[in-house]
């Protein structure tokens, strides 16, 4: 039972580690260079999953304030949009009290992962371009064949 709890309450960490190991296995054991790159992509995706999952809260929503929420925070004073500017400095403090941080997911980790996705795509692109160059030079994308060509002919 304890083991089940240890797995079920932290399911996201277990899943990311399993996916990461699948990627690592492909990178180490596969002979085909494209398959290795696919493994690398899986490996990076696992990390993206890890990051995204740590920002999630149960029952929370995206961190955007709706119009009526802002009004509720401002109470009686918020009649029109134009009055916002005048009261802003005083009331922003009051607004903070009414907004419960548990209602919102953490957006920062998701934004970080946008960058990581871009990095992952460009790494895959560079990897594929290098594989293409290898194919042009050696006529093969199997690692052992390329190593044999290097050994035999130079």
């Amino acid at each position, binding site marked *: 039972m304890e083991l089940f709890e240890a797995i079920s309450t932290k399911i996201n960490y277990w899943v990311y580690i399993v996916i990461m190991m699948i990627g*690592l296995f492909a*990178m180490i054991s596969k002979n085909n*260079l494209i398959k*290795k790159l696919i493994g*690398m992509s899986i*490996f*990076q995706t696992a*990390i993206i999953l*890890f*990051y995204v999952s*740590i920002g999630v809260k149960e029952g929370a929503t995206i961190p955007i304030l709706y119009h009526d929420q802002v009004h509720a925070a401002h109470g009686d004073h918020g009649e029109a949009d134009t009055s916002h500017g005048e009261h802003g400095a005083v009331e922003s403090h009051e607004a903070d009290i009414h907004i419960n941080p548990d209602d919102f997911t953490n957006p920062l*980790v998701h934004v*970080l992962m946008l*960058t*990581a996705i871009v*990095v992952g795509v*460009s*790494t895959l692109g*560079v*990897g594929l*371009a*290098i*594989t293409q*160059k*290898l194919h042009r*030079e*050696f006529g093969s994308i199997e690692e052992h064949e*390329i190593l044999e060509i*290097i050994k035999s002919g130079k």
Partner: protein
Amino acid sequence: MIEQSPALILIPPFLVAILVALVGFRYQKVCFPLTVLSLAGSVVACVVTLMRVIEGGTIRYFIAGWAPPFGIEFRIDGLNALVAVTVSSVGLLAAIYSKNRVPAENPDKVSQYYTLFLLLITGLLGMVITGDAFNLYVMLEVAALTSYALIAMGPKRATLAAYKYVIMGTIGASFYLLGVGYLYIKTGSLNMFDIHEVLKANDLFGSPAVLVAFIMITVGVWIKMAFFPLHAWLPNSYAYAPTTSSAILGPLVTKVMIYVMIRLTLTVFGVEYTFIQLEWSNIVVWMSVLAILAGSISALAQTDLRKMLAFLIIAEVGYMVGGVWLADETGMIGAIYHIIADAFMTLCVFLFAGILFAKTGKRDLSAMDGQFKKMPLTLVGFLVGAFSLIGIPPTAGFFSKWYLIQGGINSGHYEYVIALLISSLINAVLFFRMIEIAYFGVKPAEGHDHDHSDDHDSGRSEASASMLIPLLITAAILLLIGIFNKDLVAIITDFVSPFNIASGAR
């Protein structure tokens, strides 16, 4: 203008990289002058920043004015500023060297080459000056992606080496990213200094998550710096890449990663956690001993000049990792001093290897045959670099080894001291073998052949100015760093002493 100097370190190479990509495609001639100009601008900005740090202490520069825990911060202290000056000036010297070599080795890819070259320097400088853990990851990938491409531009075998580097480098960077993720879970911050404050304030050092973060980050950085058991990607990549690529990657990439390791151990995790609480010092110093011996002995077995130098880099990485993990103040000073000295001496010998390859077209040591007669000035430049790698007094290499050995003795790690001395001896064997070939020829026994070849090419033919000048400047810098070692060590000591690294803590 002066207040903006931290940003001005990055802006010239970055913007000019885009300009070179756009304009250089049509007008190949403008690539080289633009590259050199932008890197010169970067060097000036680095030196100005260093002067400001020496005068006024740590500089904190907020990007776009956002205050630290939320915005990205450039935080520059003595260590940063010195490494930044080193990186930008090595970049400038290698760029001058590249003038003839890039069109000769990659005739149809000149503008692409310089774009990647500038982006690589931008990434490395960014890693050095940033104070944000995630920003460091992005810069690390910028530097890594460009270096994959710079290596893959070489001949056949370079492409396979670059492929292996892509796989290994991605694993390393991903481990680093994971470690930062665990730190973020624990502290809710990505700013290196803020992370340390939160860890200390909430006493989180006992947490297993922080331990996992430390292991992930350390292993990731070790892969990227080619620390001994994780070094497999390095020798072939640097040996077969275009000569300019190895002249820029060899000195800089591993050294910048060692800077990152020092920054993470001192600033993010803190001395107390890394050296006292974890009790890893002994194991890591022994690993570095293995790295030094394995690198030096493998170098002894090589006939290919650049491959031999690549194995020497692995040994040098062992010196510095060991120096950091001695947990001794003098050892730390030695490691930081060695980052600067090693960047220039590796540049010096790689520039010479490039010149030799350009002159003779041969990769192995026989290319040295009788070169003393043909290009004495070039050989003088090489001698300074070689003496520095061996550790002969007025050069920089002697003083960095002196501090490292003193650190080893202070902390009682005699195995490290012995490994350093053995490695110096092996370096002496390696380089005096080369010097012998350069003086007396490959087979001094066959007098008949030798005389004949002497008559044949007795005329002097120095390397062209664009290759010779950076080599001689590098040699001069090596001597200057050695002669003015006191001033340099004073700056480093100012940085290291506030951390109170207890001597002899084991």
